[in-house]
């Protein structure tokens, strides 16, 4: 057991999230060099079937009505008890909305170091992406056991898919007296524009400075026949609706051309658009991480380049 690598499986709305397969693939690799196996940990209610395509040596499945939907408190308690009783070498948790509620709590409850924002992992060495993607750090772990929260999209999904992992039922710990109760899941409201359906996306970020300036990018998008999408701060400022947001907490897009205007390229944004066929970045900061993902780039001021492009259409 001590050489096994745990992967905390994630699912929402009856569907396994890709991060699960991404981590399973990596866990297999880590387990092979440690002489153990990749063990998927799945929590749910009547959700055993979700493990059908996990490429794992084993699946530990905990069934309880309290675990039917993600609940930070119930999931933390259950996973901590499993980690404490099985003592795996490493635990991989998604750096996702759900995983963010699990990883740091496990660190305390299981007395294990946590390395967050992992973009690469090998035995005893974890690379994290910090400072909005502008710096990487490698961490050395004391002892040989650790927890890592893994960035979505850091590893391919294929290696984590397979068939026929044995599923072991594990009884749930005492989950009575929970202080957090799940009420309901809300689906997004339909928007005026479906940014996932557009071949070309003009995407605007905080570099646009204010709401009035949006006109500059809207006009460019209109002339180009493209949809207008954006980074998170634009939505948080209520300048565009949530349905236009690209990224971790927004939508995943795969257009033929993605034009990032005044967007720095934080990991949470990159997660939503890195698979676009052609990425163009306009950003005055030559060190902006977006240029690591773009195919073409310019450090010219957006307020000069964008109107000039509009003029040429």
């Amino acid at each position, binding site marked *: 057991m001590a050489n096994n690598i745990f992967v905390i499986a994630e699912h*929402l*709305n009856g569907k396994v999230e890709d991060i699960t397969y991404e981590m399973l693939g990596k866990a297999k690799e880590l387990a092979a060099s440690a002489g153990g196996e990749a063990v998927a940990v799945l929590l749910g209610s009547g959700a055993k079937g979700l493990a059908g395509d996990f490429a794992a040596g084993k699946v530990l499945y905990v069934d309880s009505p309290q675990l039917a939907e993600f609940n*930070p*408190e119930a999931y933390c308690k259950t996973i901590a008890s499993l980690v404490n009783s099985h003592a795996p070498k490493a635990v991989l948790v998604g750096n*996702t*909305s759900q995983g*963010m*509620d699990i*990883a*740091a*709590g496990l*660190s*305390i409850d299981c007395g294990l*170091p*946590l*390395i967050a924002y992992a973009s690469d992992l090998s035995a005893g060495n974890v690379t994290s992406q*910090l*400072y909005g*993607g*502008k*710096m*990487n*750090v*490698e*961490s*050395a*772990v*004391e002892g040989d056991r*650790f927890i890592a929260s893994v960035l979505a999209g850091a590893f391919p999904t294929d290696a984590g898919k397979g068939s026929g992992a044995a599923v072991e039922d594990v009884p749930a710990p005492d989950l009575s007296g929970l*202080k*957090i*109760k*799940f009420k*309901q*899941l*809300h689906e*997004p*409201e339909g928007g005026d524009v479906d940014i996932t359906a557009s*071949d070309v996306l003009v995407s605007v970020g905080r570099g646009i400075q204010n709401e009035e300036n949006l006109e500059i990018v809207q006009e460019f998008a209109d002339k*180009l026949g493209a949809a207008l999408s954006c980074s998170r701060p634009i939505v948080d400022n*209520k300048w565009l609706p949530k349905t236009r947001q690209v990224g971790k*907490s*927004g*939508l*995943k897009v795969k257009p033929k*051309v993605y034009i990032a205007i005044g967007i720095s390229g934080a990991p949470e944004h990159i997660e939503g658009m890195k698979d676009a066929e052609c990425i*163009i970045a306009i950003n005055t*900061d030559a*060190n902006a991480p977006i*240029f*690591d*993902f773009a*195919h*073409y*780039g*310019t450090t*010219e001021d957006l307020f000069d*380049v964008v109107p000039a492009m509009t*003029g*040429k259409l």
Partner: protein
Amino acid sequence: MNIIVPIKQVPDLVEELEIDSSGKDLDREWLKFKVNEYDDHALEEALLLKEEFGGTVTAIALDGNDIDKALYAAAAKGADKVVKVTGLDAHVSNHQAARALANVIQGMGADLVFTGVQSVEDRDGQLGVLLAHYLNMPHISVVTGVTVAGSNVVVKKEYSGGIYAEFEAATPIVLGIQAARETPRYVPVAKVRRAMSSTEMEEVSAGDVSVSAGSSVSRMFKPVSGGKAEMLSGSAEDVAGKLVEIIKSKS
């Protein structure tokens, strides 16, 4: 409701980041700091709740990185109390920072603790979640809205694609705020200056922080990617012309 809002100064990413001579940390000599943007949201959500349901809002922070200014700004926006936790190095691990804040918050009778959901430098975990576990309180992160229902709170937690979950939770609880219901309020510099002379900043010692993150940085480096973008040169007009050609050929 008695709401505690821990706030943190983070390096302003607009500035160029350099690595120091140890090769393990940022060169902090010329770093410009600003309040973590999610802390502005956390404070805003706290102030909105106070305005609707009454109560008090306390901003709290570890000393260092030009924090006084941030605490006075919180007071200027409407925080009733500001507390500075002293006696720690500014670069402690998040485990130690969380332990220190837990030591101080423990005795404050908090109903709600609103942290920012994350910052750009929490290598060993988000402080809010660590803090909750040290305080033995439950925790929900990626929160985009809080309302009060009797002695409980109703909390929205965001997933991807615009999906969100609604939870009802008993207090006390720690919430990691991603976005307030309203855009965080702006406060003019003059008002911050007035707050500096009219606000009494409470200073409290961090207490025993003998916990460890269990890991340390061995190397910091700027990311090097395989496929760096082809950078276009020339005037803005030239660049615009080239980009339009590229867009047409690729779409």
